[in-house]
């Protein structure tokens, strides 16, 4: 666990609900079972997976698994 899975799950769930509402308001898709239940569950999973992988804001490593700042530069 690198990120914040609980935040990711809750945010994904609510993001899906509000997305469904937007799709209805903009005349794209009505509030049916697919949008009201499907989208929140889909984004719950996406939020959870993204939080577990936490691909954002990682420090670049020098190939040792350690942050670049902790990798000793070779002596010349």
């Amino acid at each position, binding site marked *: 666990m690198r990120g*914040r899975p609980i935040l990711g799950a809750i945010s994904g769930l609510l993001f899906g609900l509000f997305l469904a*509402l937007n799709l209805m308001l903009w005349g794209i898709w009505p509030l049916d079972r697919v949008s*009201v239940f499907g989208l929140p569950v889909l984004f719950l999973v996406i939020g959870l997976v993204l939080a577990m992988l936490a691909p*954002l804001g990682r420090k670049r490593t020098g190939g040792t698994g350690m942050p670049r700042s902790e990798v000793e530069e070779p002596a010349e």
Partner: protein
Amino acid sequence: MVRRLGFLLFAAGLLLAIMPAVANAGVEPEGACWGTAVIKGVTYSPENDTRSNAIPIPDEEGVQIDYSGQVNFENMDHSGGIAVRIAGFDIGIAEWGDPNSDDTRSASGVYELDDAYEKIDNVVPFGRVPGIWVVSGWHNASGGECSGTAMIKIEGNPLSNPLGWIALGGVVLFGAGIGWAALARPGRP
């Protein structure tokens, strides 16, 4: 009685117009309920039941809807209703019923859309909400029954309604929440 008959006529016309003729295929005979509605010169029928050909409801004042409808069975002691279907659940918005002892089976007339908007604006917290909606209707009588759904598209800018801003804010806020959750926490492997 006149108001009730007027509502019945409107319901039988507009709602039967937007009902698929064979909503309960295998249960109801084809064409048990039928009708049309003319909105701004365009005629809509039971075929207007998908997202791509939803019935547009103009967000304008003074719009008149010419309707006509009929049922092809004995129509005495009838009852019916209209509902908005959200996530598979029907939320009733109107019902009707009448002995209809003279067995009237057809209706036609003109409905003022402003009347509907006035009721909506008085009852619904955010007033008329633009967007695409699923509307369901049913009608039972001594000689048969029919039911069905249709799609209507209430025109207008969603951001002219507080609900539009709430929905947009929610997407931005919780989208940012997903992004925040996906940020790696320092010190975590």
